[in-house]
């Protein structure tokens, strides 16, 4: 077992452990932290495949932006764990039977010889080839159309999010200095003529 394979198995073990903890952790904050670990470890796996740029993007975008946001949301939400776990034991036997059945079925399909991963080598890459450059060039040449489409999908998401949540500007009560200076006594005080009432 050479060094690369050792690193691969090391990272994979951590990845599987982190993935399991994401779904088993009682505390949602712990789950999110393990998800961060999972992402970071898979970034390491991508590095082994010499996809440096993608690995960096995974770390920066997912861990740096998405997961931090996620963490904020999870910390702010007051999730009642007991309520979520109600009925867990009641449903466990049925769920387990169904899960095992699905696993067996998948095993029967996937275990057949057709789904074996071919023993293929990662295509060799020249030592000075730049991942970022290649990806950038592809995105702006052959894949420019889907790239633009993805941008439009993001635009749709923004428009939709704003349309669904924005409820018009808040009417703040602020005073306009110019209007205050121009004001005359007659605007402020209204003199009302009333007949004098008799005192009891």
């Amino acid at each position, binding site marked *: 077992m050479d060094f690369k394979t050792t690193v691969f198995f090391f990272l994979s073990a951590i990845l599987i452990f982190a993935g399991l903890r994401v779904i088993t952790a009682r505390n949602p904050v712990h789950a999110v932290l393990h998800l961060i670990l999972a992402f970071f470890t898979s970034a390491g796996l991508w590095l082994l495949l010499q996809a440096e740029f993608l690995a960096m993007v995974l770390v920066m975008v997912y861990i740096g932006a998405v997961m931090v946001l996620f963490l904020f949301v999870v910390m702010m939400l007051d999730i009642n764990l007991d309520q979520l776990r109600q009925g867990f034991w009641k449903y466990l036997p049925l769920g387990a039977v169904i899960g095992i059945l699905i696993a067996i079925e998948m095993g029967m399909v996937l275990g057949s010889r057709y789904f074996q991963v071919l023993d293929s080598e990662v295509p060799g890459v020249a030592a000075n080839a730049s991942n970022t450059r290649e990806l950038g060039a592809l995105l702006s040449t052959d894949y420019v159309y*889907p790239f633009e489409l993805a941008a439009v999908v993001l*635009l749709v998401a923004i*428009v939709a999010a704003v*349309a669904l949540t924005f409820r018009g500007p808040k009417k703040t009560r602020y005073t306009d200095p110019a209007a205050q200076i121009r004001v005359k006594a007659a605007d402020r005080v209204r003199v009302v003529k009333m007949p004098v009432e008799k005192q009891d």
Partner: protein
Amino acid sequence: MFNDFVAPSLYPAAPEIFLLFMACVILLVDLGVKSPRRTLTFVLTQLTLLGCAAITLLTSNTEVVYTFSGMFVDDMMADLLKLLVYGAVMLALFYSREYIQDRQAIPKGEYFVLALLATLGMLVMISANHFLTLYLGLEMMSLSLYAMVALNRESAISTEAAMKYFILGALASGLLLYGMSMIYGATGSLEITEVGERLYTYSVDKSVLVFGIVFLVAGLAFKLGVVPFHMWVPDVYHGAPTSVTLFIAAAPKLAAFAIVMRLLVSGLITQAADWQGMLIVLSVLSMGIGNLVAIAQTNIKRMLAYSAISHMGFMLLGIVTGVVGGDARFALNAYSSAMFYVVTYVLTTLAGFGLIMMLTRAGFESDELDDFKGLNKRSPWFAAMMMFVMLSMAGIPFFVGFFAKFSVLQAVVAAGYYWLAVAAVLFSLVGAFYYLRVVKLMYFDEPKIQEPIEGPLFIKVLVSANGLAVAALGLFPQFLMSLCAYALMRSLT
């Protein structure tokens, strides 16, 4: 290394580019529109669609043109479907104008922009020749539609419908993507025509391919809304504001037809034997469950939802019978009958929902079957229009729905599936019951509401024209039929 790259020709994609540009312009212009009626936004939206139609007509030719490194295809089928999509969206927006006006909670400007972006998604789907662009077009359309369903923010039932639509739609997209990745694994290409060629030339791993096709068909079935992937249809049709139901019920069906044609016929025609069996099951189940459950509905939107399920099932029959046992003699006939079916269904459903929306007022949704009682006493003209729609959907002769059903059945019989034709006719008979029940309610029952039908004259004329088109196309179906056949002949080579 990219020195040999040639800049793609933007000419075939001119309608899409114009639409995207105008959608952004309208988004900005709408910021300055103060009137609650948003007349400027509305007029600009309609003009944009008209402009797109003009560009599509001007740039259309009989050749099949590929651009963007083969990811975009412009053929006659795409041109015809795009023109029909513009028409369906324009009609839907005209009909919905008064409806959304009466409902304060719906943001008006965003409504039109989202409708345009959904249209853009449909155009991308129609012209997709690559799994990636097809998927992105689908997402663009679906995201806009999810948001449109939820736009009436004060209605809990709309929000619920939007959540169901969103979650099931995301699941369906996942299935579709999974299927695509399997097919990519088997053939090594994401380009649809390239996949077709490789399947034709090389022998590929069959089981991976079939595995992929199963997921692909399941994803497509979700999007078409056929049994057993139809759960979202009634809830979304019922829960969405009627104007959005109309939007979802019309143009997206054309786009869905296009992606079925692109994926199954352009890409996987060599595997026809594999997906035909699945489609037959989907189609028979849809016609059965759709028609039977529609009988039990008391809400006309729900009833039309189940009717949509059965109609999509019927349409699939046309796709099934294209190639039988490697014999493609009847392919053109079968596919053009499916296309004719979907086009006439969209026309009829537009008229139907247009009429339902004419009966609504501020604070009153006229979506129960009982609301149609005695419509003849309130307005004999619109009762007649509704009768045209119902009779056409039921497939009564000399309405357009009859010829649609007839041409699909012809293809089914030509392909030798006699039992399938018999089943289709039997289920259509079952369906005739609930369509005729609406006619009975309109003509033989006493009205609950006495108010006459109000609305702008222009919309009344438009709905009437739409209803009359359903009748007129039934008398002269030949033109539209040969148009569909011609477009497909030029596209399928």
